[in-house]
């Protein structure tokens, strides 16, 4: 079946622009995660949803970062007034309820100039 998909795959933004990154999880997966992966580093947790409820947003680095999952399926990560330090790969993962495995999408590579 289809895996986690993310769009766009690549995004170039000028500093100060707003961006929106989309994640389509595997159908039926209750849990959804966003991670940020800087070059040469492991993924770092940003936020977690269970259905439409955002249960943990402790990893969001600033109030410029905002995530939503209004209908418990597709999720959008929005970054306002992008800064150069926001340049990274943004990974989305989904998980079936009661299971351990998080299935990752290919990521969105964001470059802020």
């Amino acid at each position, binding site marked *: 079946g289809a895996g986690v998909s993310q769009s766009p795959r690549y995004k170039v933004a000028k500093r100060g622009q707003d961006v929106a990154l989309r994640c389509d999880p595997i159908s039926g997966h209750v849990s959804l995660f966003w991670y940020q992966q800087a070059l040469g580093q492991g993924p770092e947790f940003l936020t977690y949803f269970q259905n439409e409820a955002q*249960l943990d947003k402790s990893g969001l680095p600033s109030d410029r970062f905002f995530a939503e999952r209004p209908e418990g399926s597709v999720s959008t990560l929005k970054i306002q007034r992008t800064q150069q330090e926001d340049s990274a790969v943004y990974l989305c993962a989904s998980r079936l309820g009661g299971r351990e495995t998080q299935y990752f999408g290919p990521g969105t590579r964001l470059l802020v100039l």
Partner: protein
Amino acid sequence: QKEVEQDPGPLSVPEGAIVSLNCTYSNSAFQYFMWYRQYSRKGPELLMYTYSSGNKEDGRFTAQVDKSSKYISLFIRDSQPSDSATYLCAMRLQGAQKLVFGQGTRLTINP
């Protein structure tokens, strides 16, 4: 100091060699331990998952957890060029949902 430490490598070994990858961690409350493999320009994929201490084997892969030393390992036997990737350790607290990853070790298997 990061919660999870992993030597970034790079590590280069000949085909057929046994590979040993390791992570150390500082939080003794971690209970769930995973190894992910990440190919270039792809998302991580789960290889092995272990709860608490002990060993787990799956084909050519063996995961070990030593909670007393706060040290986890992944062994790859009969390594293949297709094993060339970045290997990430990850761990989770009981009751928490987020994964805490190591930096990743870049591995190359030379034919």
